[in-house]
């Protein structure tokens, strides 16, 4: 007796109404976003770094969890699309006054918001907002800017943009994701994107304490030995290890972690000679990555940031319907 629901991020025509997760997106959705992003990459190099695609639109950055970096990139992307941006740090305001999450959304929607960019510590929070808006205000869009451990779709897309930029073709790649997969929304979004785009081998590398169960069902090969996992890979995606996880029941110490799973030049040499090294930032040098690698010729960590702006511009303009 199952009740079938459409995915809340798609409208009844199967088009993107919100961007909540990469899981379930068609390859054509992802290609369209990446193609659109590539048309925006040049804009940031112009003297006037703006296009008028979202002029008159209001984008609300709703950050229920702190993040300077992601919030800033969304803010820049909105401004380059000529949208008005309102930054709200919700932790510090309404929820502490007892206003519910959906009350906050209703109030902001009543101020004629066109788009919410939502970051929340709870997995699924942007779904709840999107589903509420689907019932009440079908003209407002939601972009998930990271929810709990669940998804960080724009990061996943900018990672795909980066890989496409350097590797062109996804269908002959080996990609390794290294580190705290258990708590990483970036890893989950990357995995869904990579498998959707036809990458034949996605690897996850980490100690058993940081590898969630069920990765195999997501099409991932798991490795606990870093050297074995890196052998002959084309792309290495390093994950940030949160401070609070560096010592305790998951890991004994940052030093031991670096010894077993830190990306050093010696380990990088196990990958293909033209392998690229990615990191969603901010990096812990000497914990998950050696400075010689982070600053080395194979690192594409700063280009990731640049591409991130274009990818977020693409996502927002596509959702807003201002980019065909």
């Amino acid at each position, binding site marked *: *007796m*199952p*009740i079938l*629901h459409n*995915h*809340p991020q798609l409208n009844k025509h199967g088009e993107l109404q919100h961007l909540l997760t990469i*899981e379930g997106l068609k390859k054509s959705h992802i290609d369209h976003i990446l193609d659109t992003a590539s048309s925006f990459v040049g804009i940031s190099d112009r003297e006037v770094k703006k296009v008028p695609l979202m002029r008159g639109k209001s984008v609300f950055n709703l950050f229920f969890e702190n993040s300077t970096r992601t919030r800033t990139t969304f803010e820049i992307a909105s401004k380059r699309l000529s949208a008005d941006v309102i930054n709200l740090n919700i932790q510090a305001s309404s929820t502490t006054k007892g206003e*519910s*999450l*959906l009350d906050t959304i209703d109030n902001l929607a009543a101020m004629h918001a066109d788009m919410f960019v939502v970051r*929340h510590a*709870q*997995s*699924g*929070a942007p*779904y*709840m907002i999107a*589903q509420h808006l689907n019932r009440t205000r079908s003209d407002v869009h939601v972009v998930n800017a990271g*929810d*709990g*451990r*669940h*998804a960080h779709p724009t990061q996943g897309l900018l990672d795909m943009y980066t890989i496409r930029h350097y590797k062109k073709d996804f269908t002959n790649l080996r990609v390794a994701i290294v580190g705290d997969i258990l708590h990483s*929304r970036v890893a*989950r979004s990357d995995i869904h994107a990579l498998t959707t785009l036809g990458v034949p081998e996605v690897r996850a590398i980490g100690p058993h304490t940081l590898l*969630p*169960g*069920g*990765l195999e*069902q*997501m099409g991932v090969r798991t490795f606990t030995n870093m050297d074995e996992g890196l052998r002959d890979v084309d792309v290495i995606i390093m994950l940030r290890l949160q401070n609070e996880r560096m010592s305790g029941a998951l890991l004994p110490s940052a030093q031991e972690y670096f010894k077993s799973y830190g990306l050093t030049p010696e380990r990088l040499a196990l990958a293909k000679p033209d392998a690229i090294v990615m990191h969603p930032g901010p990096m812990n040098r000497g914990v998950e990555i050696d400075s010689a690698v982070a600053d080395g010729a194979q690192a594409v960590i700063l280009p990731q940031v640049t591409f991130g702006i274009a990818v977020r511009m693409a996502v927002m303009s596509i959702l807003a319907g201002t980019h065909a």
Partner: protein
Amino acid sequence: MKLHIKNGRVIDPANGIDNVQDLFIADGRIVAAADGFTPDQTIDASGLVVAPGLVDLSARLREPGYEYKATLESELQAAMQGGVTTLVCPPDTDPVLDEPGLVEMLKHRARIVDQANVHPLGALTVGLKGQALTEMAELTEAGCVGFAQAEEPILDTNVLLRALQYAKTFGFTVWLRPQDAHIGRGGVAASGPLASRLGLSGVPVMSETIALHTIFELMRATGARVHLCRLSSAAGLELVKAAKKEGLDVTCDVGIHHLHMTDADIGFFDSNARLTPPLRSGRDRDAIRAAVLDGTIDAVCSDHTPVDDDEKLLPFGEASPGATGLELLLSLTLKWAQDQHDDKEKALLLAIGKITHQAAKIAGLPAGTLTVGAPADVVLFDPDTLWRVEQAALASQGKHTPFLGFEVAGQVKATIVRGRVAYQR
């Protein structure tokens, strides 16, 4: 008050009865047919099933302390609408039911509302804190039918050992939901591929099995009688089966949600499917369904847990666990029977047994049967009428259930408590 219920299909699993026959009630009890029985009221039950009023082993009424979630009035009305005439309520109220006075007050309130029979479980430890034993003998005198820790596992195994020894001394039953105090703490969904994908923290099966191993070992040492509440996993049920075979004095129940749903029903983070224990895999669900049939599971309960909007309309991990269930117990148990294709009639008798006399036996109550002389708690229902589970259709103050929108069969037409028609549709 004399009542004559005629032409109904009387199903009384305790006595193995499934016949079209008449039922007679006088002075609040079931009586034998006799010449010259002159009823004050006659109910024509043609086309209806006449069964013992349902016995629900886990229904939170939220009083005292959580009246904003539900009140005795609202929930006992829901019980009537669901055909539940006897219910056992866990002690996790505020204050916790750990003192005789509180139990007497609750029983007194229930008597005033005068609908379903309310039988509280007392707290096994003071404040459910897992440190000091409660006055179990006094609490039993006040009306407790057993002792439980609700959702608070005991950290100190030595305290659990002492609690079982003490309960054994007086022949009390200890009701425990098997869950490890540490593994899976803070988890909101069953560990597995779905929780990993959705990024939800998990509760592994071993949280249940480790606790079961501990409980069984303590039962061997103490000889105490334990009722296990709301099993959730295939592996857990295997252990229960083995313990029963070994001869341990153990019974177990399962909640209606776990009889039908799996973690996949969480869908897109539907907080209505946020339950404790969490919904598990299809394999676990299938094992639960089989265990109802083979008798490993003795009773099915509603696990009625009304939650208000403010605590449910939240991101999945922040939402309060629980769902309303009193009004779904009958339909969802019947649904299980309907799905047993080999012998539907036998399955129906068996299913009704799990929500009547078998449940009553666990709680040590003289309910759940239509034996002559038994209290006249009776439900009349149409097994074929379909109804849609909608918020407006529910009398309970709790309007949240993962079954919202489902169409289910089995509608209560009348509920009789102690010989009085307390509800009629």
